[in-house]
């Protein structure tokens, strides 16, 4: 069973790499052995993820989150100064 899983995983890697290098997903799926339907589904999913418009952090949200980072940085600096240490 371990050997079968290794072969399957190896095949999955090969097919994902082909997808990354731009090979059409239809061709990749066609070349898959008929019994590897689960790998086919995973490749199809990866292809959809690859083609999908990814979510983005809005400018406002990005600034809001950076404010938290900045506050934390200033707190750390204050603590380090109180303890007599530098940041790095």
């Amino acid at each position, binding site marked *: 069973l371990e050997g079968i899983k*290794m072969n399957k*995983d*190896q095949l*999955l*890697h090969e097919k*994902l*790499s082909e997808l*990354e290098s731009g090979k059409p997903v239809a061709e990749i799926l066609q070349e898959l052995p008929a019994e590897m339907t689960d790998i086919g*589904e*995973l490749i199809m*999913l*990866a292809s*959809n*993820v*690859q083609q*999908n*418009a*990814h*979510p*983005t*952090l809005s400018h406002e*949200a*990005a600034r*809001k*989150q*950076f404010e*938290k*980072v*900045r506050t*934390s*940085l200033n707190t*750390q*600096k204050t603590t*380090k100064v109180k303890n007599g240490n*530098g*940041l*790095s």
Partner: protein
Amino acid sequence: MQNTEQYRLISLAKNGDEYAISCLYDIHCQAIFRFLYYRTGDRYIAEDMTSEVFIQMICSLHKYNPDSGSFSSWLYTITRHLSIDHYRKTKSRPEQPITEDFISSSPGPEATNDKTQLQDELISKIKELPEEYRELIALRFVSQLSIQETALTLGKTIDSVKGM
């Protein structure tokens, strides 16, 4: 960005330089957010966790060694650990579906409906994946990390990632 420029920013950031930290944030925040969004399925959790990643980055930056791998891989390792901690705390996998937040352009209502439906299906299929494949898909196809960077982030050898 050239690696040398990024290393200069990292070096400045290690000393608490706010401008350097804001540059590193601007370079990496979108990619980190995207990864977290796919991992959690929740925009607001992903937004909050994005700042947590960079806060953790500031605390741990002195430990980063460029010889051990790219800065991206190191940052994704922090991100991955934080998302694992998040699951441990909530003790559940994400439930909220990703819908209209995915849409970055403004297509017509019909196209929006089709796209939303496709995205819902996509996320629900990703949620069904075993954790190792979920991370693999997110790192390679959302974050577009190389096999080497993916291996470093997951704490595996390149051969084992190739064999995943």
